[in-house]
């Protein structure tokens, strides 16, 4: 356990020791800040059907910055260590491969959470300025941020897997982006509703992040989504562990 904390601390601190974390934070807040501004100013154009929270979590700006985060956050995790050779130091220390995988994943998750946390300030500012609730109920905040966290887990673990497969950061980033996009855009299958059966359509809607977010940011939780993300995260981390071990054998 102590080894895990040591590894985690190193992962998080080295992200903040390099400019990467700060650059990401800056641009994410810039994009989401604009997004929030757009959401609030739309209130000026008459009554809307959605709350500020719902509109914040369902715009192109939000999803775009969300999707771009994963390749950037995970591409260096393993690839960097393969390329510089530090993986050799790491894996000859008395450390289990599973600890390495889990620490790297958790490090990325901490960083991811740290990036989204400041966006909560927008809703605080909104309340402070207008004395109005940005959402219908507290459950909406919890739902939106909870789903953001769950989706983050799955997509970050996908990124871990991709990074563990190659020593080239860019290759890892491209693979991650493609896989994340593949899972993310399952919802687009509904556009093909003429051709596909109702079962496929049901699956597509259930697993489409956009539809899920619409539900969760209203405070309506779907346990199927929760289970889906937890199981997929575990699967990806298991595959990452296998890939790390296979790499040893290949030498």
């Amino acid at each position, binding site marked *: 356990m*102590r*080894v895990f904390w*040591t*590894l985690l601390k*190193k992962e998080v601190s*080295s992200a903040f*020791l*390099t400019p990467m974390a700060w650059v990401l934070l800056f641009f994410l807040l810039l994009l989401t800040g604009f997004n929030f501004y757009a959401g609030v100013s739309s209130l000026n154009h008459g009554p809307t059907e959605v709350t500020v929270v719902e509109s914040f979590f369902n715009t192109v700006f939000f999803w775009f910055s969300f999707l771009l985060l994963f390749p950037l956050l995970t591409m260096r995790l393993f690839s960097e260590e393969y390329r*510089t*050779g*530090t*993986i*050799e*130091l790491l*894996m*000859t*220390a*008395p*450390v*289990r491969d599973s600890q390495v995988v889990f620490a790297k994943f958790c490090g990325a998750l901490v960083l991811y959470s740290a990036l989204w946390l400041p966006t909560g300030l927008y809703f605080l500012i909104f309340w402070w300025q207008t004395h109005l609730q940005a959402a219908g109920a507290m459950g909406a905040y919890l739902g939106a941020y909870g789903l953001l966290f769950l989706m983050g887990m799955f997509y970050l673990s996908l990124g871990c897997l991709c990074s563990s497969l190659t020593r080239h950061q860019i290759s890892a980033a491209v693979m991650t982006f493609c896989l994340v996009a593949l899972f993310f855009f399952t919802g687009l299958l509904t556009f093909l509703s003429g051709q596909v059966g109702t079962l496929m359509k049901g699956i597509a809607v259930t697993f489409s992040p956009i539809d899920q977010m619409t539900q969760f940011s209203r405070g309506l939780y779907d346990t199927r989504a929760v289970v889906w993300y937890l199981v997929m995260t575990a699967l990806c981390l298991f595959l990452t562990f296998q890939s790390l071990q296979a790499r*040893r*054998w290949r*030498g």
Partner: protein
Amino acid sequence: MITVQGLTKSYGTADAIRDLSFSVDQGEVVGFLGPNGAGKSTTMKILSGYLPADSGEVRVAGFDIFSDSLKARSRIGYLPENVPLYPEMRVGEYLAYRASLKGVRSRRIREKVEDAVQLCGLRNVQKQLVGTLSKGYRQRVGLADALVNEPDILILDEPTIGLDPNQIREVRALIKGLASRHTILLSSHILSEVEATCSRILIINKGRIVATGTPSELRQRTSVPLSGTIRLEILTESSSAALRELNSLPYISKATTLTESEGWVTYEISPRGEDPRLLLYEEAVRRGWKLRELSTREVPLEEIFSSFVPASPDQSATELQSPGNQPGAMS
């Protein structure tokens, strides 16, 4: 401390090492010597627990490196070739991280890092970023990392590669200083290095051990004459007459002229049997030669090495003589 039995490892179809067996006892400093691509790094990667072998057994401090890997790994300090380090960390920070990773107790980390910093002469770069260090300092940080948890065994892969002559001397002195506390296995393709630091030498070529022994044992085992040769430098009027006379002496098997300038001639003499230096001195006095040098020359390890490892077009043994050679091969 280290026992290796029938170790074999191949990358795809190419054999890196074949049926390697050797052992290293406690307190020994063993040099692993071979041309680039001989399988040194592969062997060291297996011993340190990074690569699994295809077959064979490795026991480190009594623990099997495959089945009891964590226990074995905690007894080893490993310095990989080319010393990979995290450039964004500070030296002290990095060593503390590594100590903690290797299971040093939290309240002892400071003290252990201090010791390692002291020992490796890193005091004045302790707060510097690893990425800004010179090659020599990087090497020392790597060494400090290897010994920060005071492991029983140090495995050092090419510890002086890429250093300038001063740094090489410093690192060698450092390794010699460590020999009293650790069992050391170090690899090198530079003979003088192994000769300067090691009590025993393993010569490896094309994945097999071709010779093992102390430097003096290896000298005895080769076809190169044991007693070496003698250099004789004299002032004489006719160098060829002197050469003829030398060759006619009963205790000399062969004399050849090496250099000749301003009347001073240097001969290389292979003696027949006993050390003939006293006889040669008397001969010089008798013939009125002015004598400037009369010395024996020990057989250098280079020659011993080439007698074990035949030079082939792609790996010539002569490249072993120059410490300036950099490895391109990753073996």
